[in-house]
């Protein structure tokens, strides 16, 4: 299963981070595969962080969508 869940890094000790998945659930996550800092959001798959999530990019994506959806008209 390629399911990966976003969570927020609370603290990092060596290559293990405490990650908050919301609803009070925290877990130890191996962060060897990413350059992540405390306070950042990471995508976690089977106990390992696989990517740092780009908060700004998420905002931009949504803004871009609104623009595209509002501006684009097609002749039918």
């Amino acid at each position, binding site marked *: 299963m*390629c399911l990966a869940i976003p969570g927020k890094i609370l603290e990092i000790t060596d290559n293990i981070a405490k990650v908050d998945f919301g609803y009070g659930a925290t877990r130890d996550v191996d962060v060897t595969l990413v350059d992540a800092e405390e306070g950042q959001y990471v995508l976690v798959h*089977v106990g390992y962080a*696989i990517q740092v999530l780009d908060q700004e990019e998420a905002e931009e994506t949504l803004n871009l969508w609104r623009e595209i959806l509002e501006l684009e008209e097609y002749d039918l």
Partner: protein
Amino acid sequence: MKQTSAFRDRTLARLIQKKIRELAPQDSVKLCHVCGTHEWTITHSGIRSLLPKSISLIAGPGCPVCVVPAREIDEAVWLTMNGVTVVTFGDMYKDPGSEMSLEDAKSRGGDVRVVYSVRDAVAMARKEPKRDFVFFARGFETTTPMNALEIPRCQENLSFLVSHRLIPPAMEFLAKLDDLNIDGFIAPGHVSTIIGARPYRKFPEEYGMPTVIAGFEPLDVLMTVYMLLRQIRSGRPRLENEYARAVTHDGNVRAQEAISKVFDVVNDAWRGLGVIPASALQLKEEFSRQDARQRYDIEVGPGRDLYPGCCCHLVIIGKITPNECPLFMKACTPETPKGACMVSSEGTCRIWTHEEGLSSLEGSYSRLP
């Protein structure tokens, strides 16, 4: 978290749906995803019923459990019946081999342990140094890097039964099938966090296939459908990245390096599909000590991928939908699975068992979280 909730917004969903209706062509359009998690989002958010009839979303071979050939499950069964402890993810536990699943093997005395992470297997092997452990390493690019990290540093009594497969070669296999006639690819977001956007460039460039890398929230999928329709309408196929908040052009380079340090790319079979060129991984010679196939003289036959009547090989390339299989919800149910696609929570047949009777538009919106 905002990242998630904003991508479930109903108002935006209705707006995208309206745009999709405006753009939808008269002729039928077939869009193919290759990810069990996409099938899950599509089915559980009722995305199909939000789309015009002319647009069909089909599920390709993106369930990592469904594509493991029976022969490789037979190898795991052989190991556990010969005194080795097999450690596996829960979704492989019931996956049928030629004669037996790992669950059956356990009921006959085999030591099979289900874990959440390869780290658990490492910890077990450390705790019980006198016992031999094999981790059944299945999965696509998303699941490979962690095994690649642990293999060089794991202890003597742990080895790996490698069953990893690669997604882009499977997409190429689909693109080349004459009679499937796919009009666009929904590329898998989490595989792409690792491999980046780059490997998909060949689909628009060489196959003229519109391709969009997609995330997993309901809006991600709806927007991806819209972006594909836009490309189809313009007649200019290209690669777009809808999931830019997690997927970069180059991907996770550190993970890619870990993988290529440990594995070679080889030709291998996918369950029910036969051999797909350059679509699987094998441990490099220098890691033969951690390779269960080198370490033990495993004796298994060629394997039987399909139970008589099971159509998994057609379901996993989207040629038929589960309800077109004569065994679906008759002989084959989640309680009595006959094929791999009914076993895993990511298997298309299994996911479709939840789909029945839920197809009205408002019903779908009520399922958007």
